[in-house]
């Protein structure tokens, strides 16, 4: 059954080219939303990797995204590195944060870990107000500039800023999925699954459970950091308001909607997350609702979806069906 690596690489490349080509035929808003989806895909897969495969929970990935975002912007602004290097620095900074958090996390079971990461999500963004270099509530602006000439010229036509964002995000998202997919098939992936399935058996067979968990947390954090840097690119800034508790909840919701062990589901989850606000905006405008309604409708719908999913399809829609068939 195992597809050869080159074939699957070819498939990825084809998807990539298709998506990039697609950006020529849809309007600006859709292109921007496409970029958003790509960023969510990365964030959601970081949760899927952590929760679905390593069995740890994090309600604080929004904070790790903030670390990635701030680190990327700071290095871009002060060290004048190319933006891709800045993204890498963002991912590494978040990985470092995740490594430290993971050291604590590996020793904790569910509720403690959930609470600890929640504390991080609530508190960390507020640090921005306390250090001058972080820019306070207003945050720091971030502009990666236009697409390089050689790309823009090749594709012809006008190469807009949003299109460039879209390209960068899609390439990062595909690279992320490619990376996770290979990682899960490697020794590390097998170790995580073993630990997830039966920790005591895994320990008996010589797996260092703590190390395996810390590694999962670190990798997941790096991906969250990358997502944070990309988010900063899309927003054109980093600010505490961009990395609220709601963001942490949102990506967990996306992962749960996707079915936390289903990597491909991250795309579904991401699409849902981007579509909901659009949909609710339409509904709110149609109903002529007040600002109170339109501002809170997306949150309401995501929360209801989240609750319904854990009650009725706790293992994601797909797995749930398979289970039913077995019974």
């Amino acid at each position, binding site marked *: 059954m195992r597809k050869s690596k080159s074939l699957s690489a070819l498939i990825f490349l084809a998807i990539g080219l298709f998506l990039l080509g697609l950006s020529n035929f849809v309007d600006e808003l859709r292109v921007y939303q496409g970029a958003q989806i790509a960023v969510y895909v990365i964030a959601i897969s970081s949760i899927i990797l952590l929760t679905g495969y390593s069995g740890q929970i994090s309600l604080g990935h929004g904070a790790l995204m903030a670390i990635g975002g701030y680190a990327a912007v700071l290095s871009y602004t002060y060290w004048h590195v190319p933006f891709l290097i800045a993204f890498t620095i963002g991912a590494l900074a978040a990985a470092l944060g995740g490594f430290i958090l993971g050291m604590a996390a590996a020793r904790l079971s569910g509720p*403690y870990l959930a609470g600890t990461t929640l504390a991080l999500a609530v508190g960390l963004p507020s640090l921005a107000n306390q250090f001058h270099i972080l820019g306070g509530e207003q945050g720091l602006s971030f502009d990666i500039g236009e697409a390089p000439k050689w790309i823009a010229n090749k594709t012809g036509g006008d190469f807009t800023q949003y299109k460039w964002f879209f390209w960068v995000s899609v390439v990062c998202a595909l690279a992320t999925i490619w990376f996770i997919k290979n990682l899960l098939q490697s020794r590390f992936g097998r170790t995580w699954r073993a630990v997830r399935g039966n920790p005591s058996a895994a320990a008996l067979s010589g797996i260092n459970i703590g190390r395996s968990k810390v590694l999962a947390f670190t990798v997941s954090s790096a991906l969250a950091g990358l997502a944070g840097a990309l988010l900063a690119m899309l927003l054109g800034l980093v600010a505490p308001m961009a990395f609220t508790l709601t963001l942490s909840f949102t990506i967990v919701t996306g992962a749960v909607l996707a079915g936390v062990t289903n990597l491909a589901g991250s795309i579904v989850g991401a699409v849902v997350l981007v579509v909901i606000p659009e949909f609710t905006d339409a509904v709110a405008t149609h109903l002529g609702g007040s*600002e109170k309604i339109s501002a809170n409708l997306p949150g309401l719908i995501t929360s209801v979806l*989240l609750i319904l999913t854990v009650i009725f399809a706790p293992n994601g829609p797909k797995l749930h069906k398979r289970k039913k068939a077995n019974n």
Partner: protein
Amino acid sequence: MLFLDTLLIGLSSGAIYALMALALVLVWRSTRVVNFAQAGQAILSTYLGYEVMSVTHNYWVSIPFAILGGAAIAAFVDAVIMRSLAKRSHKGSVSEIAPVIATLGLLGLIRSLTGMIWGNAYLQYTSPLSSKGYTIGSHTIPFSPLNLVIVVGALFVMGVFAAIFKFTNLGLALRAASFQPEISRLAGIRVDRIRTVGWAFAGAAGAVAGALVTPTTYLSPNSLDLLLVSGFVAAVIGGLDSLIGAVLGGLLLGVGFAFILQYIGTSVTFSAAFIILILVLFVRPRGILGSKVGRRDA
């Protein structure tokens, strides 16, 4: 004098943390869930108090309504959502995290609902008491009648809880059902219902925390988020399954914060909370009064 002043401030905020910690511990003991929705439930009950106050113009009258509301919301959450969750998801890869996710979803749900009804703007839910510190001789201490009511109110609620737990059959059933649900069922206790009562008590404690603390700040759909985190840290310090531990943890955290604010500065409050949490988890994971049942897995 500075030392005493700081201690007093710490006790006032610590009393609130203790109430929140108590709410979390009560639910944790009975259901093994850290109820992140508690912040939302307390917000909702505080908005209820706010509504009652806007009709009656009396803060004191609004408090019992907030408390009853908080208890009712919590009972509803347990009976309707947590119970069906427990029935459906005891297997599968997310079974352990499903309850946590559900409470998270609830927090989001309540937050959006309150936002829809009352808007996201800051509202004032005010106490008639002065927030000006008492003056002793020539020295004005930073402890006001408002603080006094917070401390006394919190202590009163804790006293009532302690009495119920220690001296009534209901309290005995609550304790038994949380320690050993199966043996309790075999002894004839309707564990499901008792659990819901436990949630109601927790909801009431959270409601008191919300009603007491809000006059010192403002009311908005997420104005109790930080309190939730402090309550959690306090509960962890206390051992997460000890009621007395929760109270001590809350007071310790409050006093600790006050001293950090006073002697180090406000910029480190959050980091301090986080560092305290991590330290407790590393150094003494079962807290000061927690049971032997560890929080570490495998």
